[in-house]
């Protein structure tokens, strides 16, 4: 009954998206005709063009995400075979949340797996905590490895080298996995051309406005893009908190490298360029702690943005080589568009909108501009929340999401792009955790 409701709701939402977008564009077009001044007409055209691009982007993403959802519903509900899986938990100063994270792994609904905790030279009690949990739990063993501090990529590589599983789950030390995650993710590997599967990441600490906005963004911004890409078996970023890989594929491409700040994105690109398919499984869920204050949020997103750019720059030669794999080439350009061009356009669009509105004083255009974007965001949010069977009340945040969150995020991406181009120095940093998982 509930599934049927969500299906109907999804179709209604999708239809409403088109209608709302068309109505607002139509309204804005006629308002534009009513204005005589050339500059105002020109400005309106630019803003209208920008709105058009936003609408098309959302439309394309929602369409392919919907197709992927339909396809996903026709897949078998869970794995037919259960290959041995190794879950690797890299931990650097994760004393606060490590126990909850590992406890969630012990409770996995999967018959054959082991857990390898890699302490990355922590200065707190991470190693002691991990050692307390080491041992056998039914058929599952927890092993603990410690190493001098070398970064997350190094810890994951160490874990991979010690893994006995045919499949490897790479996650964060502060993530909690849902019990069905392995069964849901593993079924995709019955296709021998699938090299990796990206899971779905959700925010656990929805305690204040910032974390609620991030929760919405993880669903509407990140998961929507991932689901749309999955229709083409070309997920461009396997998220750090939950990625499942064939061990042989990791060995083939050389494991994690540490030459970018987004090692997960860089690894995914290498897997795709090696000819492997990368799929997405929305029922393989990892819960993660989002930054709870603006300072930590800025730091995290600045690092992500620069890391993604570094990964693209590392593979820049492929940007000019559409052959032999045109699909990979198109998707690499999509990463460039989403990480660099789109935030730049958004910042320009906002600046231009503010300039025109303050200089010419077109109240109606301001309202229509903002209303169109907000309606799109709300519709996209409802669509994504319905797809993921999330709390629909989260869509209320879409108003603040458009008004403050997106401009703030785009400015971060904008500065990160400029800094990366000019090679400005930056440090790694470590996100403060509060043990919310």
């Amino acid at each position, binding site marked *: 009954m509930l599934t049927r409701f969500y299906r109907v709701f999804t179709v209604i939402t999708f239809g409403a998206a088109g209608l709302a977008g068309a109505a607002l564009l139509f309204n804005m077009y006629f308002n534009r005709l009513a204005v005589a001044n050339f500059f105002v007409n020109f400005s309106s055209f630019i803003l209208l063009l920008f709105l058009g691009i936003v609408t098309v982007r959302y439309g394309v993403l929602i369409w392919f995400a919907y197709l992927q959802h339909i396809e996903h519903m026709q897949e078998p509900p869970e794995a037919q075979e259960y290959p041995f899986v190794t879950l690797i938990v890299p931990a650097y100063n994760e004393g606060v949340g490590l126990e909850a994270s590992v406890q969630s792994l012990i409770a996995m609904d999967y018959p054959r797996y082991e857990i390898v905790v890699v302490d990355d030279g922590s200065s707190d009690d991470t190693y002691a905590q991990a050692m307390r949990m080491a041992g056998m739990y039914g058929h599952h063993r927890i092993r603990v490895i410690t190493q001098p501090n070398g970064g997350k990529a190094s810890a994951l590589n160490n874990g991979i080298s010690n893994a006995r599983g045919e499949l490897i789950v790479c996650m964060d030390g502060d993530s909690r996995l849902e019990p069905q995650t392995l069964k849901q993710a593993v079924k995709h590997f019955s296709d021998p051309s699938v090299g990796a599967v990206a899971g779905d990441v959700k925010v656990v600490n929805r305690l204040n406005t910032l974390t609620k906005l991030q929760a919405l963004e993880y669903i509407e911004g990140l998961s929507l893009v991932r689901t749309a890409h999955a229709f083409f078996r070309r997920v461009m970023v396997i998220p750090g908190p939950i990625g499942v890989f064939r061990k042989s594929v990791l060995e083939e491409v050389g494991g994690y490298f540490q030459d970018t700040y987004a090692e997960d994105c860089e690894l995914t690109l290498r897997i795709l360029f090696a000819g492997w398919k990368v799929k997405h499984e929305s029922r393989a869920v990892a819960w993660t702690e989002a930054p709870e204050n603006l300072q930590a949020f800025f730091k995290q997103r600045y690092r992500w943005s620069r890391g993604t750019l570094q990964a693209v720059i590392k593979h820049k030669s492929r940007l000019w080589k559409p052959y032999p794999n045109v699909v990979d080439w198109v998707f690499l350009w999509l990463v460039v568009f989403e990480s660099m061009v789109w935030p730049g356009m958004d910042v320009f669009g906002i600046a231009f909108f503010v300039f025109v*509105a303050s200089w010419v004083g077109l109240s109606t255009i301001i309202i229509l501009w903002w209303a169109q974007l907000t309606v799109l965001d709300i519709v996209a949010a409802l669509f994504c929340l319905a797809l993921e069977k999330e709390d629909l009340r989260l869509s209320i945040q879409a108003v603040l999401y458009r008004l403050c969150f997106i401009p703030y995020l785009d400015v971060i991406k904008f500065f990160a792009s400029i800094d990366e181009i000019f090679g400005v120095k930056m440090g790694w940093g470590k996100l403060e955790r509060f043990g919310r998982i």
Partner: protein
Amino acid sequence: MELIPLLSTVILVATVVTIVFAVFSYLAYRAREKKVPTVATSTMDKQQMLLEPQFFKRYHPPE
């Protein structure tokens, strides 16, 4: 005051404040970064490019 001018003023002010706030956040971030030791991206690239991937020592479970 009419509704449309009032709403448009709220939207405009919120947008401008957010942008200004984001720019200040960036400047504050840069100031904080200057206080801690950092690794230049280019230097890191060169160092890491020289490193081989570290995990090709296969694990053999005890018999």
